[in-house]
């Protein structure tokens, strides 16, 4: 079992085993010195004030409101919160680890032949490395205007084909070099083609490209799991807060048969 999962399990088990006796003891201590009020309701004024904040406390930390209301089920909320936070952290770390791994693969295998520096690209760049064996050259002939790659099996070559198809009447018949159609096609290419410092080739390294693709999949899966854990945390926060509100509405601020929970206010509307 991965280390992160063990960490989650141990923490949840510790919380469940240790928290309950401690809180029960505190509750005993808290009620030991309580004197009945003139109304005979039995709860000190400070207790009512604490209970009023239970929904907000639960919204911030699930279970905190239930603890303020002396409900044992705070453990369940707290445990679920702990699990979801840890799971999110684990999966987010895993997503980053896999991301660094596929970037390293790209740098050390596909890009290693092209220059000493390998700047980090955008996500679209790494995505294109999944789909295309080679980026192709940016400029076939050094000097003067850019001469796009003509090899349509490469990313740059395909980009140039798209540019010509989009802006030329006949993609196989070049208009005059200074014409508007030619300039638009070149600008399209310049905006999208892979520059020399980002050039790549997986030729004779298809096994490594396959590993690269699978590493990206793992990174995506971990990202998805992290987001799912965050969704669980969101639901837990809401459920705990709603639980606290319902408790206050049913039991009142002072517990038992106390007054209900209400917000009163008015707006200066004629």
């Amino acid at each position: 079992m991965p280390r992160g999962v063990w960490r989650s399990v141990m923490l949840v088990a510790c919380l469940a085993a240790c928290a309950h006796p401690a809180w029960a003891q505190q509750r005993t201590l808290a009620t030991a010195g309580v004197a009945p009020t003139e109304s005979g309701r039995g709860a000190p004024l400070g207790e009512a004030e604490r209970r009023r904040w239970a929904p907000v406390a639960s919204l911030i930390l699930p279970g905190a409101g239930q603890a303020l209301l002396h409900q044992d089920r705070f453990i369940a909320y707290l445990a679920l919160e702990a699990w979801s936070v840890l799971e999110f952290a684990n999966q987010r770390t895993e997503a980053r680890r896999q991301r660094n791994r596929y970037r390293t693969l790209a740098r050390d295998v596909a890009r290693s032949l092209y220059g000493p520096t390998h700047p980090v690209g955008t996500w679209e760049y790494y995505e294109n490395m999944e789909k295309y064996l080679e980026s192709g050259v940016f400029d076939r002939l050094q000097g003067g205007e850019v001469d796009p790659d003509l090899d349509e099996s490469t990313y740059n070559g395909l980009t140039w084909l798209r540019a010509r198809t989009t802006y030329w009447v006949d993609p196989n018949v070049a208009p005059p070099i200074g014409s508007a159609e030619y300039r638009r096609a070149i600008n399209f290419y310049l905006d999208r083609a892979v520059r020399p410092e980002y050039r790549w080739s997986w030729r004779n390294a298809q096994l490594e490209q396959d590993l690269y693709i699978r590493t990206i999949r793992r990174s995506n899966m971990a990202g998805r799991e992290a987001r799912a854990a965050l969704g669980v945390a969101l639901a837990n926060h809401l459920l705990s807060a709603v639980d606290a509100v319902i408790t206050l509405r049913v039991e009142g601020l002072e517990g038992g048969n106390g007054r209900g929970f209400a917000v009163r206010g008015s707006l200066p509307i004629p």
Partner: protein
Amino acid sequence: MRRRRSKVRGALSAARQAAVGAVLAVTAAALPLRAQGGLSTEGALFLLVPVGARTVGSGQATATAESGSESLWGNPAGIARATRREVALHYSRTVVANGTVLALVYPAGKAGVLGFGAQLYDYGAQELTDVDGTVGELLPRSVVLAATYAATLGTSVRAGVTYKRAQSRLDCTGPCGSVATFNASTSGLDAGVQYQTTRADSLSMGLMLRHLGLKLQVNDDAQSDPLPTRVQIGVGARVPAVAKALPGAELHWSAELVNRTSLDDPAVRLGAELGLQKQLYLRAGYASGTGEATGPAIGLGFVRGALSIDFARVFGGFSSDAGQPPTFLTLRVHW
């Protein structure tokens, strides 16, 4: 055999692209676009498609509405004063999707009011074919599960919150080896408050935040799309003069501003509802924008004992341009 497989793959690939394109077209069409036009970069745009004939007939002004189960998809505070249980079936039909929603509202006494809903958008099956004919189907769909809690806070204030789980999926039946099916889910919430004055016209105000949540990841984590979060603020009131002039009649109007959280793309919604003897309801409204279900709308409602039926039609948006105005039908039972 190899040639037949490659033809099947080609047909599957083309059909998959068509289905994904249909899903994207639906989600893009559902968003109220700027007057100048433009594409949305938000995900799960089906969340913006309105639910409920009463809502649509009233111009989708939901901030102050107390529309029963329809408030689960509007301002969740709208069910806070519910005193009767409700089960409702909401059906919608547009040129790109059929929507079905089953919803339940359950008043729980002092505890408050609970609501539960399940929504399915079916974009239609796309056939997978090979040289011999149809071999399977692609099934693009969107699913939303929602749970709402609302309560009154004193006599004037109502508040509510909805947690929703939204899913966008592409399923396949038959030989689907090369079809990239997906199942993308995310979580979000709606929160709203309503304030009711004690004026003669029962002026009320509403504020809500909708579709606040986590990004929707369909494939790559880096290309996850944010949810279409919206801020909505509105007012509504009765017109007492109508009740005085026509006994048994009640006219209610509402107006609302809808905006993204960046507050740079406001849309206006206006609505009115005339009720007669609490049995017949006539509705009209207008939702600005250029997306699906925008434009003028009318609605009709009948109440007979515990049963009510509402109908609405919109005369704008993508579906109307395609000759199939969006139609909404709601069946409701109270007890």
